[in-house]
């Protein structure tokens, strides 16, 4: 792919809201100043109040996922200087869009409506909450709140969705469907999601599930230059793969072969050599079979044992937002001062020594069904 530049960040996460707070939180984790949250317990974004960012009006009908995304979108537009003081500054609504992943839709809204339907009467379900049950609702609301009139695309590929969103955005930018796109993912914790993972016994091994919204403003370098925007980093390559389990009856499947091919394709797409990779921001989440497959796939593709970090140690598995949190973590690593890396082995480092200010970062995501995606990011605008 032709490199795209990241010109802004919008994030709502358990370690901070906004680019600076997220970077501070991630640096604290890297410097091992913050302990990993206890295993098993969901990592909630405590104290999140959308009205702080959006005002009081119009929030009543929105679910948590939508609020997380709208706040992240607003922050990203301002961080990228596309907007200033809630007004378009260096672009216009017809030329800015959003491509955003979520894995499970609004389980909050679906459960709420199902409760009314099952325990009371389906005729009483709240019509203003019904639109939330479609998976693209959060992205739709983000467009309404922020007046984004170019492409509005929701992506669903489980844990790989946010990296796949970058692939979609790349196609849309290549075709000049927008000048800038907010790209990433969102997922919200809900009773149903927590219950599902508890029932599956998936939280026993040390895995944590979390929530958040992460977006980057992505654009072609010439478009960013034309409006005088600063590039924080570039996205230079993408790869994805699906490998089915051998056993016909199996459904859940951790595929190292898929990871290997996704990484190899991403590197080829970036015209990068495996030796260029300074650090891998992985999707390692505490689910042993998936973590092992991911690391094995990365190692085979790179022919080496690179330093691997796992932001999910402090953010939890945020599913559709996972790849976005990986991209944002990569940005923090790229700007991490040398002293930060010299303090022993922080919990988020899975393996190896984290070198200061890596230039080339590989971001990986692994799905639960044999799918995997990978992204190559480079520091600076080239």
């Amino acid at each position, binding site marked *: 792919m032709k490199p795209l530049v990241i010109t802004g960040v919008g994030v709502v996460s358990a370690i901070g809201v906004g680019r600076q707070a997220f970077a501070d939180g991630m640096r604290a984790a890297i410097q091992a100043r913050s302990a990993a949250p206890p295993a098993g317990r969901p990592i909630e974004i405590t104290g999140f109040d959308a009205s702080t960012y959006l005002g009081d009006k119009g929030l009543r009908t929105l679910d948590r996922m939508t609020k997380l995304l709208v706040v992240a979108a607003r922050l990203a537009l301002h961080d990228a200087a596309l907007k200033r003081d809630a007004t378009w500054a260096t672009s216009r609504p017809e030329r800015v869009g959003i491509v955003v992943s979520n894995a499970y839709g609004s389980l909050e809204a679906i459960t709420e409506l199902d409760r009314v339907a*099952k325990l009371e009467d389906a005729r009483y379900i709240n019509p203003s909450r*019904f639109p939330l049950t479609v998976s693209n609702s959060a992205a739709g609301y983000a467009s309404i709140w922020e007046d984004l009139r170019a492409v509005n695309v929701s992506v669903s590929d489980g844990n790989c969705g946010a990296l796949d969103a970058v692939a979609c955005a790349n196609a849309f930018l290549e075709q000049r469907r927008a000048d800038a796109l907010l790209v990433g993912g969102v997922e919200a914790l809900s009773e149903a999601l927590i219950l599902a993972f508890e029932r599956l016994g998936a939280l026993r091994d040390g895995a944590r599930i979390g929530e958040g919204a992460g977006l980057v403003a992505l654009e072609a370098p010439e478009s960013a230059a034309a409006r005088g925007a600063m590039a924080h980093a570039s996205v230079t390559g993408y790869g994805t793969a699906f490998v089915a389990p051998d056993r016909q009856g199996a459904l859940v499947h951790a595929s190292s072969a898929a990871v290997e091919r996704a990484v190899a394709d991403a590197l080829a797409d970036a015209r990068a050599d495996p030796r260029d990779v300074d650090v891998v921001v992985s999707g390692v989440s505490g689910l042993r079979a998936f973590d092992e497959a991911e690391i094995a796939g990365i190692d085979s593709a790179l022919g080496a044992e690179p330093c691997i970090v796992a932001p999910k140690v402090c953010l939890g598995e945020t599913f559709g937002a996972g790849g976005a949190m990986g991209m944002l973590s990569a940005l923090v690593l790229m700007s991490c001062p040398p002293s930060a890396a010299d303090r022993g082995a922080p919990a988020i480092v899975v393996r190896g020594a984290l070198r200061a200010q890596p230039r080339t970062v590989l971001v990986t995501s692994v799905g639960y069904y044999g799918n995997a995606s990978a992204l190559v990011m480079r520091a600076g605008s080239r």
Partner: protein
Amino acid sequence: MLPRVFVTGVGVVSSIGLGKDAFYRALQGGQSGISPVASFDASQLGRQYAGEVKAFEPRDHLTRAERRRTGRCSAMAVAAARMAIADAGLDPSRLAGPRTAVVLGTTMGEAQLLGGLEHDWIVHGPDAVDRALIPRYGSTLLPIHVARAIGAQGMVLTLPAACAAGNYAIGFAADLVRSRRADVVVTGAAELMQELQFSGFVRLAAMAPERCQPFDLHRQGLLLGEGAGVLVVESEEHAVRRGATPQAEVGGYGLSCDAYHITRPHPDATGSIAAMRAAIERSGLTPDDIDFVNAHGTGTKQNDAAESKVMRDVFGGRRVPISSMKSMLGHCMGAASALEAIGCVFTLQTGVYPPTIGYQTPDPECDLDVVANVARRGKADVVLNNSLAFGGYNAVAVFARPGALPPPAPYLGDGGAAP
């Protein structure tokens, strides 16, 4: 040079027929798939009619192992994919591997499965939730199941773009082929109607009692439907190399967002107009080249009025024939524009515009050349597939007789107001 993208096979699971031949006969004959709801008890919900798929038996299309791990929505997608591949005459060995991708649209994927899990949890408590069923939920799974069925190892992607999902998926599938990221993409959409959606549309006061009558003065709203429409799209060189007969060419597509209201189309239809103009422009055409429009045509007052405005704005005084398949199928939500895309392929292959059945009284606000009640023969070189969706989504795709479009070229415009 960018490769042309051809549709070489289609597969259909619908309320008016399984498989291309039955579906095409029904489209030609103006057959209704609407009947009283049978898959759940709708007697107390205020409305009772929908376009349910009644004849589909997963065991006729899926292996036992596949059925054990697959929800009904995915089963419809797998069945339609198998039909499409057979229709394309594609040898499975050509599909196996990383150069084949699967991109599907849906609104809610395995919503019925989720509804069952939620029922057990809400009514009987958390311990009653069958943990074996949990991993089968997720719209992510639709392309995964299809990829497994056909041996695809490339991108597996769901674009949950609500009621425009089919056009989104087909458009992006064509992008993958045009940018040479895939040789073959199995694409389209699937949707299974379930009680929660049904109740939701009733509560939005959007559902008609018995008949969906798009563009009619006395239209009373939409009816829901369900189904799966899958298309095999491939590059011209791949199709030529294997001696395939292209059925249609996928042209450009336009996407935009109203940024106005989560369920209602913008009354000025500016986004929808921009999307339609973009689809035409990105196909290297002008509005004069369009022979027929396969409408979104839900049968609600607002949609049909807004869509009529789009037609007037884009085509000026020229009355381009338009028709809504939703009069026969109901609104199949995520699957709607995929089934309608197959309707476009039907038109291109047969020169027949499918009818809008139940059309009785013209509405001055919808002053259109509606293909009323009986199918009509007409020029069919280039057709448009129009779709809108919750979220303010607008997606319009161009389909053409193979070779009728100018050679695809990179878009060099500045977008203007037309993304």
